[in-house]
């Protein structure tokens, strides 16, 4: 680990004062479950670490006047899991439950979860995030969609697909002290094209302060993850689905977002289109799954993930419709 300065701001304004405009010079420290490991391996070498855990405004879960739920970026995952406001968003809770580690849930934060760096083992072994080694090499956990460019990794966030399916927004502050922006989580992630880019759109002096979930307003939602074990391992493929039914069981609105399949969470409009105007049965769900992976371009070792992504979508749709997913 490289020696670093440590800053512990108490307000949002103070956060921005201690953040540097130079890329990589400062890193936000939330729960630290990802960052500290990266620093120990010298994959991330900030000059200054900015601990945001002492900023009170980042640590609350509030209901806004319009019924939206605002969750501070420094709220730990266990609190989200236990919070009654969030009972109506099972897709979020299912994703957090999937992490399957009390330690990570109690220490990890929502902001950290969506900003965590990719688990790509080439990256974690110091071989860089972008590049060709994943093309032919050990790419069994890599991307099957959106992988035409140099990015072959998958976005690691488990919660982001649910947030996108539910039309959540993030509140971002900086770079200027007065700057504040709200953007849909669906626009938060990007696929980096060169080494200078991050996996999200934040600039060096920007920080996520809140995630805002709009009122559930009659939608149903679910997350289904294909997990090969009960440990704190990442899913092999996942999907979050939000559906709005009319009074006759017909889907009016649908969002289908896959996780662990592409360098960003993958919003499948093809799958959503197939659902709209129909009732849910396992055939329809299967078709949505098929549509979601129609454009898949698997690498040498991850053809199987196409099947897994398809099944994840199918089962998430069935779960969101209150039906038996038909598997583990």
């Amino acid at each position: 680990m490289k020696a670093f300065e440590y800053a512990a701001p108490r307000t949002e304004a103070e956060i921005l004062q201690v953040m540097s405009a130079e890329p990589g010079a400062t890193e936000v420290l939330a729960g630290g479950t990802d960052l500290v490991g990266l620093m120990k391996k010298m994959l991330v070498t900030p000059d200054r670490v900015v601990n945001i855990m002492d900023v009170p405004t980042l640590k609350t879960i509030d209901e806004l006047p319009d019924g939206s739920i605002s969750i501070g970026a420094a709220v730990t995952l266990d609190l989200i899991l236990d919070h009654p406001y969030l009972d109506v968003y099972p897709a979020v809770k299912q994703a957090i439950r999937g992490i399957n580690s009390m330690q990570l849930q109690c220490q990890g934060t929502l902001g950290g979860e969506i900003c965590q760096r990719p688990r790509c083992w080439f990256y974690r072994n110091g071989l860089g995030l972008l590049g060709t080694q994943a093309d032919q090499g050990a790419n069994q956990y890599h991307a099957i969609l959106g992988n035409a460019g140099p990015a072959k990794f998958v976005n690691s966030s488990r919660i982001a697909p649910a947030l996108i399916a539910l039309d959540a927004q993030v509140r971002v502050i900086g770079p200027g002290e007065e700057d504040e922006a709200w953007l849909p989580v669906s626009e938060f992630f990007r696929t980096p094209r060169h080494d200078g880019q991050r996996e999200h759109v934040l600039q060096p002096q920007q920080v996520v302060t809140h995630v805002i979930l709009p009122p559930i307003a009659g939608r149903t939602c679910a997350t289904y993850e294909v997990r090969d074990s009960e440990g704190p391992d990442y899913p092999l493929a996942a999907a979050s689905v939000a559906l709005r039914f009319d009074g006759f069981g017909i889907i009016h609105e649908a969002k289908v977002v896959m996780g662990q399949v592409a360098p960003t969470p993958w919003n499948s409009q093809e799958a959503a289109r197939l659902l709209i105007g129909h009732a849910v049965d396992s055939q329809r769900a299967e078709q949505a799954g098929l549509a979601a992976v129609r454009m898949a371009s698997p690498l040498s070792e991850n053809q199987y993930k196409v099947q897994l992504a398809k099944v994840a979508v199918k089962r998430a749709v069935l779960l969101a419709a209150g039906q038996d997913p038909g598997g583990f």
Partner: protein
Amino acid sequence: MPEEYSWPSREASAVIGKVHDRLDGVVKSTGAAKYTYDVNLKNQLIAVAYGSPYAHCKIKSLDVSGAEKTPGVVHVEVLPQGKKDTEIEWEGELLAVVAAESEAAAREGVSKIKITVEELDVFADESNLTAAEVAGRTGKGGGKAETVNEPGDDDDEDEFVEKELQRLFDESKYVLEGEYGIDAITHCCLEPHGATVQWKDGKLEAYLSTQNVSGTDEGFARDLELTADDVHVQCEYIGGGFGSKFAPDYWGIAAARISKATGRPVKLMLQRDQELKLGGSRPSGYIKVRLGADENGVVQVWDSLQWGSSGFRGGGVSHSVIPYVLVPPNYRRVSTTIKSNTANARAWRAPNHPQACAMSQTALDDLAAKMGADSYDVFLANLVNATNGKAEVYRAEMEVGAKLIDWKAKWHPHGKGPSRGAIVDGLGMGLHTWGGTANTSSCLLKIYPDGGVESFCGTQDLGTGTRTVCAQVLAETLGLEVGQVKVNIGSSRYPNSGASGGSTTVGAVCESHRRAGQDAVAKVFDLAARELGVDASVLEAVGGQIRDSANHQKRISWRKACSLIGLKPLEVTSNYRRGDESPLTDSGVGGVQMAHVEVDKETGVIKIKKFVAVQDQGLVINPKTCKSQIYGAVIMGIAAALYEQRVTDPQSGKFVNAELSDYKLARLGDVGEIVVELYEPDSERIRGVIGNGEPPAISPKAAIANAVANALGVRVPTIPMTPKRVLDALAKA
């Protein structure tokens, strides 16, 4: 001296065969126990090693000047293999060590080391025989052929065997061909390899994470040009070894050298990725099998070609245990070794057996599938081929196991069970054998005039309960309670005791402690006999008393008897030498394991529902620690069956999942219900103590693979059975 060493009968045993909590359970679970990793000496330096980023290269230069200039770095040593022109044969091979005031500074120093190399060709695809041949990485691994009919004097032996096997295949009612495999895994010790060392007056004190307390002083001494008496090795607790921690290792020696050079204590534990890369791995094994069986499914002929690797020196799984345990009268087995750019393998819990079991008892199960028969019946029929004389024991253990897993009610033909959505279930079994002979061991027993009892033995407790077993044996022998005996182990200053490898420890310490106990109590009997006016031969030590076995009124308390010893404690040292005939221990255990699994056919995810392990190990000293050992082995076996895999990038040879977050192990939620049954009828108990440290880790892979095949009706040929492999197998079928 007692006439003969012996164990008390089941009925007469007060402590032996009874459940006893581990003596170190509380200190371990509260964190008070100090493992090597926890040893921090005053003023110590932390050393971190730099490993080769290339799997195969020739070093052109290694520049450590950046490390030397890093603030906090005190000493940098380039290791012999870090020198110019050395050929490096696997990724992670340590090239230099940086010692610093803190771990952070040492790591930062390591990050400043610069290497230039000439890259050489990399081969790491051990499962791919053709590719290995093309790359010129194969070698002859030996083999053996055995036929009932013998060649005539004029026959060419190879030709004869070829023809004879063909004839036998032609005669067979069933012929099965299959391919099976099991990837390399690592030992993955939670406490990595390493040591904290310091010099005092020219002598070395080493706190070493080791399975070999009594034997590593020589290792340090040899490499540091000392004599073994100048080295003191200590290891009170160890966080996993599994066969990989028998030596100081070159990094331990480097720590000692740096300590000498700097005059300060040095702590060097491998970093996590280094532990996985260098700390030890188990050879991979792949096989092509053809077998022929009669109408009852009894295999008459076996023909196999296997390949695999133990790293850069070739190796692989020994052909000598193929096919495993159930060996037909006619067979040919041939093996090819592969040199791959991976670190050299180390002994892994029952070396060769787990792979052999997984590579051959899977074929037996496929035979059952082909016959449309119940796998249980086919295993049963093949017990006639058991080569270890344990057919009857296996038969009995199979019966016990079948009851516990409810085999009859749950069985369905392969691939023909009911499904619940995408979920199907299946049953499978495997069986195994192991030696477990007692190792050499000495015990110094001190009995104090006030009744205190203390033992000293240079053995080690790998977490298996050795300490507790020592205390139980002494308590039984002296008629005391376990808490009245103080057991000292884990120091090379204590009497020599063998390394804990080969399941030899429980036998070893039972020999030395029972002997020392019987020798010492005989002396106490002599003193007590005079006091009681009886012949010493009628005395027994029971319940804290020495008494006449025929007339219990004639007795004195243990304390009183000890007061007759005089002013100085009574000291007895008793030995056992490995291989000596003894009524206390034996060799040769067996076990039968059965798995009930569920498989999601759409995702390829496998879940263990229930796992039954029936195991014999002669006389059981402590059923609790004995069962724990089996639970642990089964969990390890489940991990290897479903998750564990050293993933080596085929292009670069990099071990890409060398982190606990990526190197998948089974967690508690993954292991299902595990039922352990100790098989200990009188016929077993009378054999004495036999080690069971390794054997229960052998069968899980075969049992689970067979259960998956039963569920799916399709064989997933290579272990671990990841969702990818399950789906690939289903797609192929």
